[in-house]
């Protein structure tokens, strides 16, 4: 499901890469230069993840049949019944 978006990575890919970077810095014997490069990349990925998390927009739609039987998206509102919710 990895789809390339405008930021290049999906949330999942970004967080996976971030996990790899943390592992590499913690457990691999990287040169100081590599460490700094990876640190920078990791911080960018973390910010990207935060951004992706917050750019989501609440949308709950339902598909309805239009006049020519084509499917049209419309807002969906849950019928509120008299229960705990």
């Amino acid at each position, binding site marked *: 499901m990895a789809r390339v978006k405008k930021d290049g990575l999906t949330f*999942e890919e970004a*967080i996976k890469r*971030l996990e790899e970077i943390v592992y590499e*810095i913690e457990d691999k014997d990287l040169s100081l230069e590599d460490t*700094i490069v990876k640190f920078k990349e990791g911080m960018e990925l*973390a910010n990207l993840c935060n951004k992706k998390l917050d750019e*989501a927009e609440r*949308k709950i739609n339902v598909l309805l049949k239009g006049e020519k039987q084509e499917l049209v998206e419309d807002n969906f509102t*849950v019928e509120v019944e008299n229960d705990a919710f």
Partner: protein
Amino acid sequence: MNNNALTVTELNLYIKDIIENNIQLSNIIVKGEISNFKHHSSGHMYFTLKDNDSKIKCVMFKGYNSYLKIKLEDGMKVLARGYVSVYERDGVYQLYCTDIKKDGLGDLYLAYEELKKKLEQEGLFDEKHKKKLPLLPRRIGVATSSTGAVIRDIINVASRRFYNVNILLYPVKVQGEGAAETIVEAIEYFNDRDDIDVIIIGRGGGSIEELWAFNEEIVARAIYKSKIPIVSAVGHETDFTIADFVADIRASTPSHAAEIVVPSYSELLYKITSLKTNLYNSVNNRIKRDKILIENLSSKIKLNSPQNKINVHYQYLDNLRDKLINSTNNTLIKKKHNLMLTVQKLDGLSPLKSISRGFAAVVKNEKLIKSIEQVEKNDIIEVYFEDGKLDCIIKEKSEVKIWQE
């Protein structure tokens, strides 16, 4: 005739004996419609099974009817398994039921088992075909009824976990004629779009007929063919449908499906934050470690630096110089002292000193005369005093021991 007469009890017992010894009657399945159903307070069930032309009394004891999966009621068409025996007190034979199933379902169960076996052999349920769910789906496609608890539960649970959730509902018929077809259409529709990351198909629990759409082969194949991972949320906990087996993940309830599909916002946020902290700390530690290493190395290199060696030599050189100076001085002092001693000694031995005390030195031909043997009568000698000399002629020479007088 009287002699041959049986009591009523004897007759009923005799008939009972014959019936109970009939193997066919000891385990039979009877098809009919329930009427006069009574669930006695004792827990036992009493009813009549009938068809258009005939009826038979039935009883199902508590020990058996507690296992029933269906609720018996008048007018229900059933298949009853049991044995026939006689209730002597009333002189009636009855069907003693051990198990009852709804009639018409037998075919469904059979079809279910057959399809399950077939698809399993084809590998549709194989673990290796199961797709992984996305961590953060951009949009969730839901195929279920637009009315009822399922979509409501999904939206509620999803919103609680991640308020900014994006759900697209494709309303489908979840039971009855054409239900399977609409479910297939929904799956295919979602696959044609490019913004759906995961699909939930679901309905609330129900009887096997109500859930039947989810046991249809076309639905199973549509799920298998889907490029998008599918979570099935059919039934409640215990009923497994074919769709459940083919789906990438089976959720026990629609709420559970939403929990599986929608990540918790706060958990994700926590995860990112802790990864960030880990990253920061590990780089920090790394730099600290390097710093210590560098400090160690630099103190080592300082110890071995040329400057340090030169300094060591400087010091040695200074030591040597001091030693040289000291030992030279010492020698000089010693020599001086010796000289002084010699001079003192010499001074003590000086003839001038003797002369100054009143002695005189006798010299002949520039030689000091120490004995009378060295001179003769009429020799000219010089006698030196402190303040001058006398030229003298020897008149007489005689031997005298001065020191003995």
